[in-house]
């Protein structure tokens, strides 16, 4: 598939206003690895998939399957060893706010900035005027239910609230595609379930294009529209599953899909790492 010019033009800024059906992310025969102490370590053998505008795509795989490596490559932190990654038609990917990332770690906030400043500062970096940046930051703090904590410092927040701030910060940048690397992986089960529901609601409202990495099948089914299953070490894409119509978690179709994904991931026994 020729990469240049084939993608429909997607405006760099404002994931909301982009063309419906336009391809925002295109991963084409991508090979990924990194240099370790024992030479080159191949994490992803070959992966190909697309993410359309406003679509929510979840990459799922067991630990070591290279799913985080894939996200790092899309974010521009790691150049692919082969193949091409195109975001809105661009293939020279340096890290940038058009692909805002929410990480798993709680300490991804700037400790010396309060909650409002943590959300407003990245806007300021991207040439927003002070007042506009603050107004936009407040808007997104409202959206994530953090208005009451605007002047608190990160160390005064719980883990769940810190992740909310990180989500607000990423959303406020209105990225072409929002990247999330197991953002709820360090949370307790109850907070995680609550944040999954909240995030789902927010993404529905903002129509954000999502690229989300997790090892949890339930998280993938709750948040995703399509699930890319990575399998093997180094990994390949085993299947891309449409999960739009799985129904609520207590429905038979959900249970069926869950079993299907478990089989794809080749998980033995009852424990699949979900809480």
């Amino acid at each position, binding site marked *: 598939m020729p990469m240049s010019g084939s993608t429909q033009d997607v405006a760099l800024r404002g994931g909301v206003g982009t063309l419906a059906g336009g391809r925002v992310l295109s991963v084409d025969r991508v090979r990924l690895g990194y240099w370790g102490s024992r030479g080159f370590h191949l994490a992803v053998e070959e992966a190909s998939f697309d993410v359309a505008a406003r679509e929510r795509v979840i990459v799922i795989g067991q630990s070591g399957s290279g799913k985080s490596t894939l996200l790092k490559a899309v*974010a521009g*932190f790691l150049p692919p060893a082969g193949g091409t990654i195109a975001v809105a038609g661009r293939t020279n990917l340096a*890290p*940038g*706010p058009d*692909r*805002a*990332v929410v*990480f798993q*770690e709680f*300490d*991804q906030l*700037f*400790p*010396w900035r309060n909650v409002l400043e943590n959300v407003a*500062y*990245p806007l300021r*970096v*991207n040439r927003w005027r002070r007042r506009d940046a603050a107004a936009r930051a407040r808007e997104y703090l409202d959206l994530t239910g953090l208005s009451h904590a605007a002047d608190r*410092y*990160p*160390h*005064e927040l719980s883990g769940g609230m810190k992740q909310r701030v990180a989500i607000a910060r990423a959303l406020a*940048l209105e990225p072409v595609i929002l990247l999330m690397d197991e953002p709820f992986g360090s949370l307790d089960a109850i907070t995680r379930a609550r944040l999954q529901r909240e995030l789902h609601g927010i993404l529905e409202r903002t129509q954000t294009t999502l690229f989300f990495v997790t090892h949890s099948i339930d998280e993938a089914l709750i948040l995703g529209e399509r699930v890319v299953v990575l399998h093997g070490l180094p990994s390949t894409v085993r299947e891309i599953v449409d999960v739009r119509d799985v129904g609520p978690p207590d429905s038979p179709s959900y249970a069926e899909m869950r079993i299907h994904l478990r089989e794809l991931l080749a998980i033995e026994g009852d424990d699949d790492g979900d809480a």
Partner: protein
Amino acid sequence: MATPSVAVPARPRGARLRWGRLPAWLRYLLLLAALVGIWQLYVVWRDPSPLLFSGPRDVAEAFWAGWKDGNLARVTWTTLKILGIGIGIGAVVALTLTAFAALSQIGEDLLRMLVAILNPLPGVAVLPLAILWFGLNTNALLFVIANAAAWPIAINLDTGFKTVNPTIVAVGRNIGLSSRRLVTDVLAPAALPYAISGLKTAWAFGWRTIIAAELVFGVAGAEGGLGTYINNAKLFLDIPRVFAGLVTIAILGLVFETLFGFLERRTIVRWGMKTST
């Protein structure tokens, strides 16, 4: 043995609590008053030779007179000025070396080696050489202080930059920071706890070094500092003035301790990067 254990800790705990409930400034004031009281008692009881020891009253008078006629203020200002410039030079040297160390392996090796060689050296130890090189003047003092201050600052800055949380650097790059702003807006504040700690050590080292240097070599340059003041007072056997100089040093130590504490509470303690002062 087990049953009365509930009642046993009650009394000492209650006694401690009453002292602990007083505000901090009052606790320290009371302790200070007690120390001065013991000092006064010793003078009254043993009546030491006024050529060897002074009581709190004489010292207070000398201290007051010294500040009133401007002599103590002048020498204090001289010392602080040289100290400030010296630490400033040391900080610039340290910053340059750590930047070099962050950029290249050879820079890192150089920093490690220089720190290993020069940090354990007491600051005054290089004074004889400094006087040979610069003459008996302020420049010699500045060299000695810069040398005493540079190494603790360099060690701390180096550790500070090396221990910056990589996730926060990734976030900085992700939101589109240029390399320059990544340094000023992310790396610098992230390394601030270490920078302050390095500055505190440099201040303490520099302070000891300058007083020692002034004491040993007497007048350094046209103007004398606090060490010179103490040394001169000793030459004239004006013991209350010796003590007045020492009290000034002690008070300045307290003042700067308070200033550093204030700075830390406003920054790294407030941000949760340091738990307490």
